[in-house]
């Protein structure tokens, strides 16, 4: 096999160069003009029943494109390790398109690599790629999961008896804050007095604390629970055991809560990846900035569970229809929960406005603070 011969050759070469020689010059890159090699980096295990799995499942769409080779690496921390993993994919596997699927990969790691390897294309899930500011061979794609959480909220507002909803969140970053706000705005659409109680666990995967948080919210009188953590399984199961209603996140959790599941916000990464795969098959360049919500089927809500009443389904369907028609839902007058105005009366924030992705506040009605 030529692979092994190459191995021996590079080995000799590196022995001669010692450790000082630079790798970029040392390795023959296989040329993939028509059939690209795609490298995908995951921050956690690929089968975590959460964020990473959602990507890994969708990535299968890429593997089905003829001639495309996909190489994957899991459990890559957001340190120099991810830079080296990308570089290793480029140098040793000949990757010419990289998907980085964790928030912390973007700056500085992916941007560094994009500068270093201008011929390789880099795309990041959720990063805020900005023209002129970031390299042209980098980019980002993201689905507006907040729209799914808004629909969750609309349904939850109808079914909640106490009007107190619980939200278990990992970290106070813009995407999470936006989901919390959207959940509240949805709930308030159905029940203007609804409140959302937030508990931050402090990290993406802390099963015991997530379970404790679900119990604490139940004890505090919340009757609907949702979350934004990497793997929502524990939260949904714990809430179901406490007899509460639940709304999902990331992927379908419907089977975990046969009694209390209302609906859930689901990523449809496969829509994006399939679009990408089609472009790749045609040999076209991928766009740098890809965004979409329910309107583009980047996001969808899980089929209603037993927790969704007839009225809730109707309200949620109406909200989904509005979002499909791109009707904004962040409408003024709106204050944050410290009393500062964020959207003046008569104004609204468009669903595609980047301002949403930069959310740094919790809106009025959310009980919780960012630090």
């Amino acid at each position, binding site marked *: 096999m030529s692979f092994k011969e190459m191995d021996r050759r590079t080995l000799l070469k590196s022995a001669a160069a010692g*450790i000082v020689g630079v790798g970029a010059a040392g390795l023959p890159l296989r040329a993939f003009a028509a059939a690209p090699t795609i490298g995908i980096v995951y921050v956690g295990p690929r089968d975590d029943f959460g964020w990473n799995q959602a990507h890994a499942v969708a990535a299968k769409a890429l593997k089905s494109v003829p001639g495309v080779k996909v190489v994957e690496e899991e459990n890559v921390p957001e340190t120099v*390790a991810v830079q*080296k993993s990308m570089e*290793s994919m480029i140098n*040793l596997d000949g990757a010419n398109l990289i998907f980085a699927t964790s928030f*912390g990969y973007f700056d*500085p790691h992916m941007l560094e690599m994009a500068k270093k390897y201008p011929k390789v294309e880099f795309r990041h899930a959720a990063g805020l790629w900005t023209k002129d500011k970031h390299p042209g061979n980098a980019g980002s794609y993201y689905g507006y999961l907040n729209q799914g959480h808004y629909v969750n909220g609309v349904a939850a507002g109808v079914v909640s008896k106490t009007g107190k909803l619980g939200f278990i969140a990992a970290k106070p970053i813009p995407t999470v804050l936006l989901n919390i706000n959207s959940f509240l705005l949805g709930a308030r659409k159905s029940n203007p007095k609804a409140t959302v109680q937030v508990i931050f666990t402090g990290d993406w995967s802390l099963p015991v604390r997530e379970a404790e948080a679900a119990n604490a919210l139940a004890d505090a009188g919340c009757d609907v629970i949702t979350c934004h953590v990497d793997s929502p399984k524990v939260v949904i199961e714990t809430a179901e055991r406490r007899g509460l209603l639940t709304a999902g996140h990331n992927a379908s959790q419907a089977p975990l809560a046969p009694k209390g599941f209302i609906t859930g916000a689901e990523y449809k990464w496969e829509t994006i990846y399939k679009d990408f795969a089609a472009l790749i098959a045609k040999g076209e360049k991928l766009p740098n900035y890809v965004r979409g919500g329910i309107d583009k089927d980047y996001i969808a809500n899980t089929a209603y569970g037993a927790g969704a009443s007839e009225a809730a389904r109707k309200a949620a369907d109406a909200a989904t229809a509005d979002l499909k028609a791109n009707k904004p839902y962040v409408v003024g007058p709106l204050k944050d929960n410290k009393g500062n105005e964020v959207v003046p009366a008569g104004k609204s924030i468009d669903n595609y406005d980047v301002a949403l992705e930069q959310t740094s506040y919790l809106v009025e009605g959310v009980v919780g603070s960012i630090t």
Partner: protein
Amino acid sequence: MTDTAQGSPAPTTLPLAARSDFVDRLRSGSEYVVIPLIAVAISAVLFSMFLLVLGKDPVEFFSLLWRGGFGTAFSWQNSLLRAAPLILTALCVALPARAGLVIIGGEGALVLGGLFAAMIALPLKNALPPVVLMPLMAIMAMAAGGFWIGLVGIMRHARGVNETIASLLMSYIAIAIMNFLVEGPLRDPASANKPSTGPIGEGNMVTAIPGTDVHWGLAAGIILAVILWIVIDRTTYGFALRVTGGNARAAKAQGLPVGTLMVSCCAIAGACAGLAGYFEVAAIHGKANASLIAGYGFTGILVAFLARHNPIVIVPVAILFGGIAAAGGLIQRRMGLPDASVLLFQSLIFVVLLISETLYGRLRIFQPRTEAERT
């Protein structure tokens, strides 16, 4: 851990003719090379069997391991880069271990070191030139790390608080402090989905060692390892430290300042880990954020124990770790094995390496020859 922590004194050689003395030294010296190699080979055989059961090709596994870790110039740099922080965090364990203290909280010192390096840079980055600010950042990082583990030493000396558990607890507390500051008061609004402090500034970044991709943290780690080896093995301070480690009560009876020794060696250890944090911030991230909590502190414990707390040995052990981590990605990609398989292989090597220590001084071939053999 008295006996193994002391490093391994070479078997006493008999005062004989120089030539045969050399042969004897060669025999006993080669013990420290041959036995680990045998251990690695045994673990490779064991893991091959495991792979065969899974229906995977062991030859492919090991050729990828070699290729991804050390087989190319790129792989070497990859491994060295990953080894750099581990050398420093392992030193954080090794030095106190020589004084009989088991410190497992290097992670916290690293995190605080990185945080303080960024904190000092933020207000001063426009006021001071890099040539002043960069050392200042490193000093701040070392001071923060040194203070944190030094506190553990003080608690141990003044209150008899067990240093192992105290350092672990302090590590969790340090992480909480970092998270709070980075997501709260120190948060840069532009850092969006990865809450971070503001950037320390391009000009204040540590560069790569010329001709490589590896930052100067590696060189700093190796230099510190050599210095600490000299300190431990060749100075009165090191001697006093080892006496304390051997028997604190006896050391006290001999009039050694046990308290000062304990606290100072904890502080030096913490400074090493803090420096690792500095390089993470100044050479990699350019700002402080939760990426500092990458487990380097905990991996460093394993490195230190495998190196039997000998600073010089820490360097190759850390590189071995870096190499396995670097190769892990390639193995995942090419063989479709989960990341856990590399973890499994890595731990198998450790277990067998540690078990192989029992062979030292027991194999005839490495022993000084007896009179009968010489004639």
